[in-house]
């Protein structure tokens, strides 16, 4: 019990650090703008994985590490923030976000030194990569897991469903797909653009062990990852989230899908963090 309390505190603290890093990067991006809302909606998911669930160490290329793939690549602010907190990306380098010749562009670019295993940004591709990695790990008798974070809007892409079908066909019980269901996509709500209400049913019917939970509730995420998973199915988590979570001006405001963080809003956000 004591451990649980400590772990949850650690995840929550990690989440605060992620939001701080996200603010720093979004602010330093200036007029080039950043995908703010969709990064904030995955903060607790990414925190739970990087600070608690995933087996990782100081070596980003450690063969025995759990693998992470950010399929919704535009949410890279949260990814870079986490890679910084675990020591793979130097804090100073975060300031190069979206700058000329940077390693940290607006979508992840493969960089083994920084712990970025794949390039992403073209939506619908990360789950297929995850399947390739999951199969590889099984072939090598490596008992690590693969975590793929997808967007709900991203589930519009047909290739996601090709991959969803294949993962259960191959019984990839070492593969997790975490669907960030923040109910928005670029130009509007899922409801307006492409209805994703039945995502849980869809993933279940594709043969995945599927749960729906609150993607900002660290206790819920913690509990989920602590229950022994013994079915031979891949695992889908429909994480109900809030786009722009954490700041009054951005929560559930789709203007913050991709927007400029001004000085005054940056300062306001910093105050809201504490």
């Amino acid at each position, binding site marked *: 019990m004591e451990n649980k309390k400590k772990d949850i505190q650690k995840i929550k603290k990690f989440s605060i650090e992620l939001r701080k890093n996200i603010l720093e990067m979004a602010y330093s991006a200036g007029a080039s703008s950043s995908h703010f809302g969709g990064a904030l909606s995955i903060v607790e998911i990414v925190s739970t994985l990087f600070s608690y669930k995933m087996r990782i160490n100081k070596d980003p290329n450690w063969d025995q590490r759990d693998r992470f793939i950010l399929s919704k690549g535009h949410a890279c602010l949260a990814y870079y923030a986490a890679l910084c907190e675990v020591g793979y990306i130097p804090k100073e380098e975060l300031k190069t976000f979206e700058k000329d010749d940077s390693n940290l562009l607006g979508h992840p670019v*493969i960089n083994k030194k920084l712990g970025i*295993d*794949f*390039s*992403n*940004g*073209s939506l*619908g*591709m*990360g*789950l*297929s*990569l*995850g*399947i*390739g*990695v*999951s*199969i*590889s*790990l099984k*072939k*090598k008798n490596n008992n690590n897991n693969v975590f793929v974070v997808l967007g709900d809007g991203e589930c519009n892409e*047909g*290739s996601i469903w*090709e*991959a969803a*079908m*294949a993962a259960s*066909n191959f019984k990839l019980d070492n593969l997790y797909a975490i669907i960030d269901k923040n109910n928005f996509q670029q130009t509007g709500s899922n409801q307006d653009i492409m209805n994703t209400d039945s995502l849980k049913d869809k993933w279940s019917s594709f043969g995945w062990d599927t749960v729906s939970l609150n993607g900002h509730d660290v206790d819920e995420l913690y509990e989920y990852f602590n229950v022994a998973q013994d079915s031979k199915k891949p695992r889908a988590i429909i994480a109900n989230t809030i786009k722009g979570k954490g700041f009054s001006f951005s929560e559930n405001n789709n203007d913050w899908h991709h927007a400029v963080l001004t000085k005054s809003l940056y300062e306001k956000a910093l105050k809201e963090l504490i």
Partner: protein
Amino acid sequence: MIINDRNIKTWSAIGSRATFGIATLELAKEIDNLMVLTCDVSTSAGLDRYKKTYPEKYLDLGIAEQNMIGVAAGLSSEGYNVVTTTFAPFQTIICCEQIKVNIGYMKQKVCMVGIASGLALGNLGFTHCCIEDVGILRSIPGITIISPADSLETIKALESAIKSKNSSYIRLTGSSNNPIVYKEDYNFEIGKSVKLREGKDLTIFCAGAMVYNSLQAAQKLKENGISCSVVNMHTIKPIDKNAINDACRNSKLLVSVEEHNIIGGLGSSISEHLVTVKDSPNLLIIGINDTYSKGGSYNFLKEKHGLSPGKIVSDIIKNLK
């Protein structure tokens, strides 16, 4: 692989697709980390024996080519030497974005094999022909493109591509009873063309099944008093610039012959270098003239699109005047 007269004849009879299957079976013996991925085409790609012999080195992704490329890249990132194969349009165009991002941009090493490219499946219509693959893939940085002349060259290209550090696309043309260009073993090197015939008036650059037709055309031209060099440009990317420079010095006319749209393929690739050569001869690009036609048998379509030896000869003669 044992290269002898008997095997060359067998490979020719079964065609490049089935030969590909035999070659992978052989390569799997020595390459521990080989993985062959298909999209429900194991029989068409001659892989039935392979999948029975090496089930652990084989993966069928069903009819889902976009997923196949992503899975291939994931396997490659974990150290597997991956070959993917399906019919050429589905190996290249349906999953083009996945190829761009995973294989081009991300540089995950994969060897892609497009079977029955060109016009071989003409009686199934142009959904199953592929006259665009070279043009499309050539514009993606980092992918070697090889179009083998016959079944023996298919084996050599596959082995070289699998053992290479770079990603590649092997474009298989022709059908069963694939004419034999190479009657015996020879030296194959990616990026280095092979001069098959020496002549002083003009040089024909060709690739894939068009190599045999070009050799036949050259023989007919000789009977008309025209002397041709014939160069097997098996690697379309990177193009063998030395061979083009050499032809510029020694020929009055250059000709390219390809079973592909005249836009984006071998002719385009040659012309991109040719424009940098001072006082270069003209280039006659023979191929499918940027059009989709009605379908029909392979021979019918080659004739219709000016790719039979006779049509190649008359096209060249017309342009020499």
